[in-house]
């Protein structure tokens, strides 16, 4: 049975919890009349899947998992491909270099018109024609870099592509990929082959997140037996990797019928990266505002001031900056206490470092790790919510805090400024619902917390503004309505074709 929507997902729902996974779960549950098929891409060998982290709603009719990494390609003969098509493959790389993506449909029609046709993974990795293409590209573009590194970088960057060329996505009226990257490529290939409509929702900007990761990586690839740091030309190979992800995003932008993101800053980034502005759209995340608005308050003890941190204990949240900031706050306010709420098992090493830092700074008895608990129990017991992340999309915690009428201190990343100060003029007129600080700056974060600690009236005012803002712009119902409408429109458009 053809599903209504096939969600193409990379390394998250329904196997890994997190912001994006929660969003997907929310969307599926809120659209019970839509039949969803899930195509999940894992950085694993083959199709073995980890245990589910979510209970699948009944309207999920299919779950397919697909591994893009792994070991050897079995020597399986593919279809013979005329030399002219291999020349098209080479020429397509020139198109990519010039940021043109028009040739994809024609290329696929010649090379691999369906997932079961075309060269096998083994052909691509070990075959002479693809060697000829790689060699021609090397000679034209990088004749002075180490060839063995170029070659292995090509293999590792392209192996997932060759795998995905052979990936059979579930049959659906509309394809909805929840990122660019490999998921974007899988959806793009299906779009280019079947002409079924495809939409993209990007929470974080995939290519930029990958670039950040790559810049921080010591090893670009580990070559068998001799792990090798590329002392010479390392920048070149990092650039190759980054560019690959950039191109994947661009290809996805070019094929998508609609490019959605969750806040304005991301939309601008997408357009900078080549997305057609006419296809872009912001649909912010939404929450069930009333649930949080209805939470009561547990009054604080006299002289007590309660700071809350809600998020996974991982480096990207920069909890260490929070702990340093709290140390400054604690120095000024003897009754200050901090509560850290969120899973601590994702990066136990980092959690231990953070706990160690708290001890070193002498605040360990005023700072508690609560682990993963229901946030509904947390918001009534804090006076301010703090976020110190170095990277964010549109963090749910800020919506929840606002719905619970809590003021917020947040770093200037992702949608935080839009969320605290307003997006359009009407939104801004509601007033600020928190204080935006610079990243990795404990002094600034502490200063903002102290400002709020010393001014109960300001806290109340910001709480009111926050609640008004989420009521107006960040309702779950609005998000659901938007996607229901998009799915309906695209499915109808597909039916007309």
């Amino acid at each position: 049975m053809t599903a209504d929507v096939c969600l193409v997902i990379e390394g998250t729902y329904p196997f890994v919890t997190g912001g994006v996974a929660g969003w997907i779960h929310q969307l599926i549950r809120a659209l019970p009349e839509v039949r969803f098929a899930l195509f999940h891409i894992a950085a694993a060998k083959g199709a073995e899947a980890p245990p589910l982290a979510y209970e699948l709603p009944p309207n999920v009719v299919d779950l397919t998992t697909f591994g893009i990494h792994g070991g050897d390609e079995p020597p399986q003969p593919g279809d013979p491909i005329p030399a002219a098509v291999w020349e098209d493959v080479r020429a397509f790389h020139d198109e990519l270099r010039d940021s043109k993506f028009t040739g994809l449909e024609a290329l696929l029609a010649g090379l691999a018109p369906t997932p079961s046709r075309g060269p096998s993974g083994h052909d691509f990795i070990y075959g002479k024609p693809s060697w000829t293409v790689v060699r021609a590209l090397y000679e034209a573009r990088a004749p002075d870099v180490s060839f063995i590194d170029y070659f292995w970088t090509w293999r590792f960057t392209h192996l997932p592509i060759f795998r995905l060329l052979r990936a059979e996505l579930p049959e659906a009226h509309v394809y909805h990929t929840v990122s660019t990257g490999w998921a974007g490529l899988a959806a793009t290939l299906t779009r280019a082959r079947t002409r079924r409509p495809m939409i993209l929702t990007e929470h974080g900007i995939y290519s930029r997140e990958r670039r950040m990761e790559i810049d921080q990586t010591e090893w670009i690839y580990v070559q068998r037996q001799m792990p090798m740091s590329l002392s010479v030309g390392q920048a070149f190979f990092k650039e190759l990797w980054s560019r690959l992800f950039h191109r994947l995003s661009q290809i996805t932008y070019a094929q998508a019928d609609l490019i959605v993101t969750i806040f304005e800053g991301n939309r601008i980034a997408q357009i900078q990266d080549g997305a057609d502005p006419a296809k872009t759209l912001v649909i912010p995340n939404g929450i069930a505002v009333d649930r949080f608005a209805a939470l009561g308050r547990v009054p604080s003890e006299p002289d007590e001031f309660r700071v809350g941190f809600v998020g996974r204990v991982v480096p990207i949240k920069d909890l260490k900056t929070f702990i340093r900031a709290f140390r400054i706050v604690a120095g000024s306010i003897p009754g200050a206490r901090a509560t850290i709420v969120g899973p601590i098992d994702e990066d136990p090493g980092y959690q231990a470092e953070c706990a160690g830092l708290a001890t070193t700074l002498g605040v360990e008895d005023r700072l508690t790790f609560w682990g993963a608990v229901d946030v509904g129990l947390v918001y009534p017991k804090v006076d301010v919510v703090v976020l110190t992340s170095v990277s964010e999309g549109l963090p749910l915690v800020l919506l929840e805090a606002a719905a619970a009428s809590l003021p917020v201190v947040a770093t200037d990343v992702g949608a935080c400024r839009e969320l605290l100060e307003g997006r359009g003029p009407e939104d801004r007129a509601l007033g600020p619902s928190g204080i935006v600080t610079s990243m990795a700056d404990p002094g600034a974060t502490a200063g903002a917390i102290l400002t709020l600690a010393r001014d109960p009236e300001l806290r109340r005012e910001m709480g009111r503004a926050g609640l008004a803002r989420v009521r107006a712009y960040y309702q779950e119902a609005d998000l659901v309505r938007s996607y229901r409408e998009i799915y309906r429109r695209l499915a109808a458009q597909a039916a007309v074709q």
Partner: protein
Amino acid sequence: MAGIGFQLKKLIAKGNYAGWLRAHIYGAVISAGPWLLSITTLATLSLLSRNIVRGAEHTLARSIIVYAYTFSLITTGAAQMVVTRHLADCLYVGDEGAFLRAFRWTIGTTALCHAALAAVFYALGPDLPPGVGLIGAVLFVVVACLWMTMVFVGAMRDYVSVVWAFLVGHVLSLGAALAAGWHWGVLGFLGGFTLGQAAIYFVLAARVEHEFAQAKEPQRRRGIRHAFRRYAPLAVAGFFYNLAISVDRLVFWASSEGVRVRPWLYGSLYDAPLFFAYVSIVPAFAIFLVNVETDFYDGYRRYYGVVTKHGTLRQVLEAKAGMTASLREGLRRLGLVQLPVTLGLIVLAPQLARPLALDSLQIAILRAALVGAGLHVLTLFGMIILLYFDRRRAALEVTGVLLGLNLGLTMTTLWLGPRFYGHGYALAALASALWAYRRLEETLADLEFLTFASQPLSPEVEPILPPERAAAGAPAVLGGS
């Protein structure tokens, strides 16, 4: 482990003709020495022993020795090739500790298997004087173990020990056979000969044991049994090759030209010309060994060095061109020396009839066999170079061509008549040489593709390079008896 290439280069580095000549004589001695000594010993024995062991007994003794050499080469062919490769793999990853374990396993298995084979063979052979079958069996086992030991000493590059061991051992074989034959007839003759061969084996085995007595513990990796499964094509190639170099003589033995000694022992007029033809290619061995150990091996190492040490593709191709040029230069030199020798012998063949005790038909066979041996040696060298580039399947094809054609065409020549004797071998050698040349040209043309694109993605399969000197020691196995 003395690097033979290093010593050769030292000789050549003297920069004069004498140094060059000495290097090549040295090369000839170490590559063909053991085999030349074996032939010389046999020839000397048959000349000197006539007055000691007479008539049918003499032929019987000779046949038992020839059998031991011929069949042990065939039965150890597969193991020689696989063990050679296994040792090269061990050396490549620096696991010299595995040598001793592999050596003992190999010798134990070889001895057991060949004892079983010999037991069956001599048990079935009727009418043998008591004890002769037993000594024949012992000789068979000893010689088989000797071939396998040569693989180990070859991997150590210790050719000098081989040559000395063979020299001493053969003198001992000769002396003991004649002395014991004088006293105890055919039994003593065979026993004495076997004693000398056993001495060679024990000297070389002690050499291996001594060399690796101090080696560190073997790494915990897959052993030699795994190598047989993994290198099955190599095993087949080794078996094919060793069978191919004897199959024409076996065909003659079995034909109406064969000389029956006992119900299952043969010889033929074809044997002697073939042996002399083999002797004619000693110069080619010398040139090949010197070239492979010096220029080619340097170029080979430079090529893979550039590949792994992050060279650009242009540098890789330059290194390939250098290596290819050294191969072509080696081939040119080989032709320059071998061609006049072979042609000269063909022209002078009639004059050789008397000193070599060959009749006119055998002279005609000798002429064809001289051509065959010249081409055969090209086949062998092509195959060795193919193995340097890890082209196992191509090597298998080459040996398959040589075996199939040598068998088929030799049978055809028997059917066509005496005028064609020897031409089957020559044609088979021509075809296999051309095949090897074609595969080698393809390999060289595509080398960078093969080097990079054939590397498997998963780590556990193979090292990044074809293990160096995969074919080390192979020159020593040409011919036999």
